[in-house]
């Protein structure tokens, strides 16, 4: 009863608000006629759109050819191609150090972004596809798994960055856990439990492998032999005097994951954290694509005696291709614009190791005393051209597929 009275209250309020707003709109309608009301409905959107999307797009080209530090357009002198010259006038694009200051920042960001996209996108798509394929099996509680994997997508990049920063700091949780793990492992190796436990596990693994191997080599499976051999080898391995020493790990030295540049850890973690935060979205799209493939296709294939792997290559993958292309292009475009997570997590550091192209634009325009809006705008033009190429590629691919 309470719900229905709430409902009717909402309905009443909705109606009243509508009637209130109807006054001016109905007056306009009487003036211009029902057909032209379409323009009235479009107006607010077009206004905001024009002012904050189209106008800036055009303005961006103009600003790219101006210099100075003023925000006011009129006070910005035209400098021609000066900004572009500063960005592009490098002896070698592969070595940003040879560029002028702005060019150094630009090319560092660009190469980092290209590397980031080239590594992150394939990894993420493969992991998302594998996860989606597994969830598309006859899994219990699929909705729940799907929700859990999707959850990080809901989190803000700042929160994601703070969480992982806390994990990856030098005195962070990952180092503490690894330290404990190493200490614990060494204690286990030194203790009396090691020989029986490790021996049993090793024997089981060896048995599983050897029995299959035997079955393949001989027509007759000699399982007893395999068992004896496995236990013997395991005992030999575990009881040999050198084993504990060999297995004892060196004392763990905390790694400064986000700062230690030597092993490339910062870039690794930047890719990892970004993937962690976005994987669920692509998994969701791919899963939806998989579930849109009609079941009876597989049943027909089964009736035809098609093997599972053939059905996968000949049915699943081709039918999933359109979704895959969408996912690929979307993730590429997003990867090129990565900023939030990385800016909060590493600030582009150490040095410039994880500085991406958008951060270059942001910092040129808004950080430091010299606000180089011209450089930022010129960089934007170049990045936009790059993104446009990607998008046109997508259009071409989808057009071609639709045509074929």
């Amino acid at each position, binding site marked *: 009863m309470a719900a229905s009275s709430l409902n009717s209250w909402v309905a009443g309020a909705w109606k009243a608000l509508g009637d209130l707003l109807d006054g001016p709109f109905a007056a306009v309608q009487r003036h211009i006629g029902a057909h032209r009301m379409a323009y009235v409905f479009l107006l607010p959107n*077009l206004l905001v759109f024009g002012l904050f999307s189209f106008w800036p797009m055009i*303005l*961006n080209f103009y600003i790219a050819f101006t210099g100075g530090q003023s925000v006011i357009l009129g006070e910005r002198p035209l400098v021609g191609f000066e900004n572009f010259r500063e960005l592009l006038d490098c002896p070698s694009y592969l070595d940003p150090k040879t560029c002028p200051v702005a060019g150094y920042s630009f090319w560092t960001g660009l190469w980092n972004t290209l590397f980031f996209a080239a590594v992150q996108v394939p990894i993420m798509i493969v992991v998302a596809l594998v996860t989606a394929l597994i969830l598309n099996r006859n*899994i219990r509680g699929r909705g729940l798994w799907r929700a859990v994997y999707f959850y990080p997508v809901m989190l803000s990049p700042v929160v994601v960055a703070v969480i992982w920063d806390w*994990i990856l700091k030098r005195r962070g949780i990952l180092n503490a856990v690894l330290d404990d793990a190493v200490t614990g492992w060494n204690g286990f190796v030194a203790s009396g439990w090691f020989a029986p436990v490790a021996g049993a596990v090793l024997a089981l693994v060896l048995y599983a492998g050897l029995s299959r191997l035997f079955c393949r080599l001989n027509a007759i499976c000699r399982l007893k032999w395999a068992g004896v051999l496995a236990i013997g080898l395991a005992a030999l391995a575990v009881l040999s005097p050198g084993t504990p020493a060999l297995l004892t790990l060196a004392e763990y030295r905390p790694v400064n994951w986000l700062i230690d540049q030597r092993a490339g850890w910062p870039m690794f973690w930047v890719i990892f954290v970004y993937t962690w935060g976005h994987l669920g979205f692509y998994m*969701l799209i791919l899963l939806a694509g998989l579930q849109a493939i009609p079941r009876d296709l597989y049943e027909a294939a089964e009736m035809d005696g098609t093997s599972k*792997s053939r059905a996968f290559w000949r049915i699943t993958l081709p039918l999933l291709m359109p979704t895959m292309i969408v996912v690929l292009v979307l993730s590429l475009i997003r990867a090129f614009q990565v900023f939030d997570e990385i800016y909060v997590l590493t600030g582009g550091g150490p040095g410039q190791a994880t500085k991406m192209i958008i951060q270059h634009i*942001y910092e040129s325009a808004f950080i430091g005393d010299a606000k180089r809006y011209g450089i930022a705008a010129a960089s934007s033009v170049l990045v936009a051209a790059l993104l446009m190429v990607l998008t046109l590629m997508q259009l071409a691919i989808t057009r071609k597929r639709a045509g074929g």
Partner: protein
Amino acid sequence: MIGAGDVVTFLTRTRGRGRLHWSDWLAYGYLVAGLLIVVLPIVWMFLSSLKSPGALVENDPRILPYEQITVPAPDGSRTFGVQVWTRPDGTRLDVAVVGPRGLNARVFEVGKPEPVFEVPRSQLARKEIVSPRWENYTEPTIGATQSRTFNFLRYFWNSTFVTVVATLLTLVVNAMAAFALSKYRFRGRDAMALVIVATLLIPPTVILVPLFMTVSKLGMLNSLWGVIIPAIATPTGVFLLRQYMLTIPDELLEAARMDAASEWKIFWRIMLPLSLPALSVLAILSVMWRWNDFMWPLIVLTQSEVFTLQLGLSTFKGELNDNMHYLLAMTVLTLLPVTLVFVVLQKHITTGIANTGLK
């Protein structure tokens, strides 16, 4: 010994009739491993947000917030940590540690301040209890340190304001445009729809500078409106709503026109209620976008009174590394609203996003 066929079996076997196949076990193993990678950091952070500053500085990796038990000194001037003394014969005694002396510690039995005696430190272990420190949450929000460290309530209000107002405006403005583009025939309609879809391809990140200049010229720098207004006309929203509205039969609108409803009334009383499924998807997306927004607020809002939560949090992270206990607690509070929305509307959100392919 694992062939390509096995991998395919693992990925594609869709029938678990009767017993679980080995690939089922592997699948569940994969899912659980993934679950740990996704959930563990968040759960861990949540539980750690209840730890004391001391425990966080020590970088105690245990999941639960342990706290050492303390007792006051006899004169009340200070407190002593309590430890469990395990005598060589195996009996145990709770003692308060007064101080170290060489390899020994000077202690007294809890509840019996005299005598103070010495025991080997190797025989002592800290006596701890699980004790969540809720002050991490209360102090920066309603407690004494509120304005000094992290003006949480102000940021929270700013974020809520931006999210709610921008979402309402987004819904109304985009629904109006979608209505015009889906239900009227007028000159230039198709061109306009095309242009709006084309802007989907223009990433907002490449127009930062001119957008900033426009917003600054309109006097909206350091104003929440500078964050709200540029965001309300999303091509995504128009596109999404238009596609949905195209499926609403025109005869309904004609019936309403025969019923003497004005165009606005048709929009408000017929179109909007019937577009509720699409509107709710857009509402959820918009809430997510605005609440999590970082880059544009970072550019427009430079004074801390107008910071959103995301800005506050990132600033706080940069400045105050010794206040980890507050940072974690505030992070939890920041992700809490989105999490609650997600828990309640989980099914709706995942199907909505899966169907539209938008984020």
